[in-house]
């Protein structure tokens, strides 16, 4: 199964894509993760290539280095459309970032796939049910694909509380009921496991996209 991860800028697509890929790897599958983000210069999967390879993932990134102004889509991405590949595509934000998927329209048509849209209701541009639905529509239009599942990833980085997650879950359910797109996961950082264990469809996340001064503390100190 091929899974493409989309959503608004800064909703946590990359963090979710990495965790999702590792969860598939934990099931024993060989997993490929590809960085299809050509709109964001920093905080992309490519920055964690070495770490992810050490964790057993195959990682496809743009040639030419980590921080390049105009990343390209390597031909290697086409291997993700081969039979029986478990592939995760980390796509750039907004409809602008999702446009790269349209380039593979014919390949998607012949390959079993899902398109997950990550929601974070603490992001003001998608902070309401209406705005989130608008973004989903725009992403479907530019990607030429249909969103098949929602991921509630409502967080405030190190300041995330259980209330954020529950509020996001409520709003995501509303988006799901209006659009008919199923809510697949409610994410929570692992540190909130105890408080979050009664939330349905819980997906625990480890934090990979730390800032340089957070590495040591793995996101546990938000006051540095």
């Amino acid at each position, binding site marked *: 199964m091929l899974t493409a991860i989309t959503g608004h800028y*800064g909703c946590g697509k990359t963090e979710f894509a990495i965790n999702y890929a590792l969860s598939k790897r934990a099931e024993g599958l060989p997993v490929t993760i590809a960085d299809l983000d050509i709109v964001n210069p920093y*905080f992309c999967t490519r920055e964690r290539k070495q770490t992810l390879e050490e964790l057993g993932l195959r990682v496809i990134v743009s040639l030419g280095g980590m*921080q390049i102004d105009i990343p390209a889509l390597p031909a290697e991405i086409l291997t993700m459309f081969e039979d029986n590949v478990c592939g995760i595509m980390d796509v750039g934000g907004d409809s602008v970032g999702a446009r790269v998927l349209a380039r593979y329209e014919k390949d998607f048509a012949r390959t079993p796939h899902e398109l997950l849209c990550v929601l974070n209701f603490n992001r003001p541009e998608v902070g309401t049910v209406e705005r989130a639905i608008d973004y989903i529509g725009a992403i479907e239009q530019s990607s030429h694909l249909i969103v098949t599942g929602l991921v509630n990833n409502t967080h405030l980085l190190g300041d995330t509380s259980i209330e954020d997650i529950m509020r996001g879950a409520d709003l995501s359910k509303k988006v799901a009921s209006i659009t008919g797109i199923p809510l697949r996961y409610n994410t929570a950082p692992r540190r909130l496991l105890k408080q979050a264990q009664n939330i349905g469809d819980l997906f625990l996340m480890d934090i990979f996209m730390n800032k340089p*001064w957070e*590495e040591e*503390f793995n996101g546990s100190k938000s006051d*540095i």
Partner: protein
Amino acid sequence: MAKELWKGNEAVAQAAIRAGCKYFFGYPITPQNEIPEYFSKHLPLVGGCFIQAESEIAAINMVYGAAGSGARVMTSSSSPGISLKQEGITYIACAELPAVIVNMMRGGPGLGNIAPSQADYFQATRGGGNGDYRTVVLAPATIQEAADLVQEAFDIADYYRNPVVVLADGMIGQMMEAIEWRDPKKRELPQKTWAANGTFDKREHNIINSLFIDAGDCTVQNKKLEEKYRAITQNEIRYDLSGDEEPEVVLVAYGTTSRIARAACIQLKEKGIKASLFRPITLWPFPEKALHDEAQKPSVKAVVTVEMSMGQMVDDVKIAVNGIKPVEFFGTGGGTIPTPQQIVQKIVTVVGGK
């Protein structure tokens, strides 16, 4: 108000709009592109105007024009783009116009790269343009502080009729943090009686100009500017001091690097080394006296400056410390981010570890 998750560049643009900025003129460059992108979407919604100019030079001259008419106006760019704007900035400073200029610094010199850097300190604090002029330089270290300082930058610019530079780097532009929106402290802002915004047949023409053909006239203008800069130095210096009250070592760092230095301070404490962190918030005017006072503490063996450059602010640190304690430097140039461990190693070699 509840906290929201903002990307630095978006927060900068939204802060400007909250501060009443109606005009943005700029030209794209990574890693600050979300600033014009946000303005292009949101300025029309508040009756403002966004223009993607044909070049950085055109953009800064549009800023000059809009500021001359009394409007709240801003531009942003990243290092090489800011270089192109220097001529306009010295004209704006000489003509005594308020404007806000945001620089999300990237690796240099030259075209460099899109990674975060702090190598435009000289350019911002010494003026990349010609003549005796100063720009107020504000250096946020968090997205919250960026949102606060950008709003206040417009008030400072209006109050002193002077360009204000907000100097951050690609990391602050690109990273996400939780913030809450709050208003800056209230200032009594003077009426813009000087603005060239139409006489309506009720007054003489206001003339906006940076040309003083007569050397005597130009000298008078220079003295006037000098008095203003003295007032700014008296009123606007800001810094943050944290860490041990009787430090062996004083770390000096601003912006992104101060976050890394703070992480280093936590590690130093575990090693039994007492450190304080002096973080200038205004780079010009530089908090000279406060840093001198901190360095003067009997416990202090050395002052260590950390920058994402090959050593620029360290000059101001040496002026402030004025030889009373040794000043050491650790820096990374060209877009590399120092790690807390590297800073700790440097400190250990300077003061000795246990």
